């Protein structure tokens, strides 16, 4: 049932990458429980604009959980308290009247804050550039069904490919590790025949770049898997470790 609630927000405000930020208090009044979390921030921003104040900067695009642009830590939880949802899919009906909501940006050394809740996640793109692709030679296209892939393998690859690159795994990890993200891409490609020729090269290159970017080391806390909006499993991290070990110790790739 729709009702309207009043909330107290404590939002991280920071003018730019190299200045100090702090939590500012705002009041979001008369918020319909049918609104999404981002719509609630829109309302607050309209109010701030009318008051001639700087609106809260936050990332968003599709607002339907597929693009991976949105994300903030809500009362200590990446994308808020609901399982398997992005921030844009979080509805205000999960909050109650008079709640105090603390909104912080993703925090990691590898994710620099650009402004307020907007962080630079290009480190994840850098990891993909290191090997998150397959090289396809040009030529006559072969029949689509000429490479048989077992249904089970296709499903596992699809589960890994569901990653939208939002960075919640890094944000939720007590060590700010990007291993769930990296392992999802390594897994997706290592599982499929098209990805196998470059599997060893890819595993070594992506892991090395991930380390250089200043992400932490996984200690199997499982917080990433619990917060991932696409519920990607840490079984992918185990697969990445196997792929990396195979590449490092058995393959001839250096």
């Amino acid at each position: 049932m729709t009702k309207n609630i009043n909330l107290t927000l404590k939002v991280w405000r920071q003018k730019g990458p190299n200045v100090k930020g702090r939590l500012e208090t705002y009041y979001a009044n008369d918020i319909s429980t049918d609104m999404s979390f981002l719509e609630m921030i829109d309302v607050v921003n309209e109010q701030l604009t009318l008051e001639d104040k700087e609106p809260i900067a936050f990332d968003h695009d599709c607002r339907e959980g597929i693009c991976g642009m949105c994300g903030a830590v809500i009362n200590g939880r990446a994308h808020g308290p609901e399982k398997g949802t992005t921030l844009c899919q979080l509805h205000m009906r999960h909050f109650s009247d008079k709640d105090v909501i603390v909104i912080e940006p993703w925090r990691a050394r590898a994710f620099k804050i650009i402004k307020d809740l907007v962080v630079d996640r290009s480190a994840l793109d850098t990891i993909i550039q290191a090997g998150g692709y397959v090289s396809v030679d040009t030529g006559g296209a072969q029949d689509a069904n000429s490479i048989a892939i077992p249904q089970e393998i296709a499903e596992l690859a699809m589960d890994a490919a569901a990653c939208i690159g939002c960075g919640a795994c890094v944000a939720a990890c007590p060590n700010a590790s990007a291993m769930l993200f990296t392992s999802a891409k390594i897994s997706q490609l290592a599982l499929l025949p098209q990805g196998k020729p470059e599997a060893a090269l890819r595993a070594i290159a992506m892991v090395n770049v991930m380390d250089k970017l200043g992400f932490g080391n996984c200690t199997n806390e499982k917080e990433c898997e619990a917060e991932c909006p696409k519920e990607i499993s840490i079984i992918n991290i185990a697969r990445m470790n196997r792929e990396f070990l195979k590449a490092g110790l058995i393959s001839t790739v250096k």
Partner: protein
Amino acid sequence: MAWITETFTTSIGKKILMALTGLSFCGFLTVHLIGNLTLYGGQDLFNAYVEHLHSLGPLIIVFEWGLLLLAIIHILTGSILFFQNLKARPVRYKVNKNAGGRTLGSATMPYTGFILLLFIIFHLLDFHFVDHTTQTVYQIVSNSLSQIGLATVYIFAVVIAAIHISHGFWSLFQTLGANHPKYMPLIKNIGILFSLLIGIGFGFIPIFIAFIA
């Protein structure tokens, strides 16, 4: 041979080192516990076991130095990982909340590990680097454990070890890449059982010596 250092200095490489040395410690603790169970058989049985162990001569020396090497690798690598992980999030969250992944064991690994290091040093000073010419090992053990204060230290350390292993055991399999939907639930249960066995098995020794024997 640069590939060896290149492999083992990466994040995953260091985790593999933690897992392999941790697995060795689990093996060591199992053998150590089985040996120590002879304490429940009284003075003669325990001293006979110690006698037997020492008669292995050079083999024991090799094992001791091997354990020391594993300990150095585990502690150094663990410390590097700990400080790298701290550095990876220079500005911490104001509000921290678990999503349900963390456990008591997983959240405290570096701290329980550090306490274990302190305990192992104390334990060696207490039992190993003492005069073995005028007293039997049973006497050394019972002199120490019959003091309530020291018995408490031992029980505390064993509980800490059980907490460390409660996460470490399944975690080492995950790190080594052995996560299979059919076997992982079993590995997790064995890990809980193993940490309980270590906790109860070692933990009752001080109680037995202090109050029963």
